[in-house]
């Protein structure tokens, strides 16, 4: 089943056309990846899907409904959350408060289901459980990345957007983060991943798209794109 569908999307910043007519869809239960060089428009795409940027033209469908003009909170309510580029944890809040912010729109915060989701996040990121009372701003980059992902999962989303979760992390931590992405999928949450770490990302994606200056220039199963000589030459250079 198609969970997310982007149709002929155009997004501008003033006169800059950041996204120029892209279309793709995300099937439920899969990992879909967008790769592309700096400035290709990956973050802009995710921001638009979350409702932080207005579209110039085109549309976004989630679970069959047109959400092109929906407010960000309406999208969260429908089960679409994001772990943004640069983590963006609330620095003055504790780990626990950050996780609670992730569950802001949930009405069941005293229920067993909520406890279960918290346990699930702590299961994925045991480090967070050890640090529940620490201020997010004092945590290491890797820990903040875990927190940002955990926070995005606390809404119990159907689709989670991950914008460069491996950015700035040591190789060992990168592998760990990617195996957690696998686990998120295994637990039934659909993932739309944006990555510069193309090799690791492509290996585990069901579908991947290559973005170049606002356009999709190649699409296909992750393994296949990883083997594509053109993709290899452009994106798989100094990968870990």
């Amino acid at each position, binding site marked *: 089943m198609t969970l997310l569908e982007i149709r002929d999307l155009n997004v501008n910043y003033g006169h800059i056309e950041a996204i120029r007519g892209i279309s793709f869809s995300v099937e439920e239960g899969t990992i879909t990846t967008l790769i592309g060089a700096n400035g290709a428009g990956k973050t802009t795409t995710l921001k638009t899907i*979350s*409702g*932080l940027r207005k579209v110039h033209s085109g549309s976004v469908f989630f679970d069959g409904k047109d959400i092109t003009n929906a*407010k*960000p*909170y309406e999208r*969260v*309510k429908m089960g679409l*959350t*994001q772990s*943004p580029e640069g983590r*963006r*944890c*609330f*620095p*003055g*809040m*504790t780990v626990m*408060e950050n996780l*609670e*912010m*992730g569950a*802001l*729109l949930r009405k069941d915060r005293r229920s067993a289901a909520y406890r279960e989701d918290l346990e699930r996040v702590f299961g994925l990121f045991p480090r967070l459980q050890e640090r529940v009372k620490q*201020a997010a*701003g004092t945590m290491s980059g890797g820990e903040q990345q875990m927190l940002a992902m955990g*926070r*995005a999962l606390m*809404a119990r989303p159907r689709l989670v957007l991950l914008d460069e979760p491996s950015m700035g992390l040591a190789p060992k931590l990168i592998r760990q983060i990617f195996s957690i992405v696998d686990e998120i999928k295994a637990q039934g949450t659909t993932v739309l991943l944006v990555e510069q770490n193309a090799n690791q990302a492509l290996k585990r994606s069901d579908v991947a798209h290559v973005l170049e200056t606002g356009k999709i220039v190649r699409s296909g199963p992750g393994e296949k794109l990883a083997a594509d000589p053109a993709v290899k030459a452009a994106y798989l250079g100094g990968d870990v």
Partner: protein
Amino acid sequence: MEFLIGNFAELTITGLVLGSVYALVALGYTLVYGVLQLINFAHSEVFMWGTYAVVWVLTLLGASGTSSLAGAAGYLAIALVAAVLMSGGVALIVERFAYRRLVRQNAPKYIILISAIGASFVLSEIMGLRDKIAGFLGLQGVLGDYVNNPRNTSTLPVEIKPEPVLQIGNYMVRDTELLIIISALIMMFVLDQFIRRTSFGRQIRAVAQDPEAASLMGANSTNVVRLTFLIGGVMAGVAATLYMIKVGATGFNVGFVLGVKAFTAAVLGGIGNLRGALLGGLILGIAENYASGILGSEWRDVTAFVLLVLVLLVRPSGLLGESLGRARA
């Protein structure tokens, strides 16, 4: 100097009373600044409208003569509700008409600032021209008691006689003074807990720290901004009631000086910081009193600003510095 030493207790207590009012009004500046990084110049008028609510309600209820604080308690409780509703309502109107559209369109800060200054003038002039406005509406007869001589001072219809209740040093603290200080501290405590512990409070802090990330969590930033203005308005309404208990008179232009002082208190404590507003307000109130005790009362207002400049030279971010966004749990 001898005067200061001889009257130290009195100057301190009355300084705390004044400072409590500054602090409550300062909260409105600091909250809005924390969330929008903008100074709400119309906040002084939110306070001023609250003082009129107190006068009008007591007039409407037919309060008159002189009364002890305890004797007027019933009236004052109703006046408090009216002032809170009035100031809260005016704050929401300011948010709706002077801010919302500009904030949503990401207008440059100076434009929003000017919009707020404009709202401030409009609100004080509506009050100052209320006889004319009532005249246009043909209501001057009905509203006579409330709109006559709008540019003169309006006084409470009942005079509240303070009674000494507690000796501190060589000064007998009055019941009104005790009430004002304690009420302000209670309001500050409740607000502090609200911001730290509740889900609404967490949402306000989230928007203050990172509005975009807060949206991604599902925060409705329009609602958060509205809530912030409302809380500031409620605090100003309480401040207005306490002010009227102490001062007993108001005018369409009382907001200006008091607003500037409260704003100074907020900056002194560290704008965006709730506890800073309290600290800044109390220090300012006391410092003004000491200075007018030593130098004479004409030095009162000068002191406030000399103090501000001195503190900012040493600590540019104010005494407690950190912003609402950084406020730790």
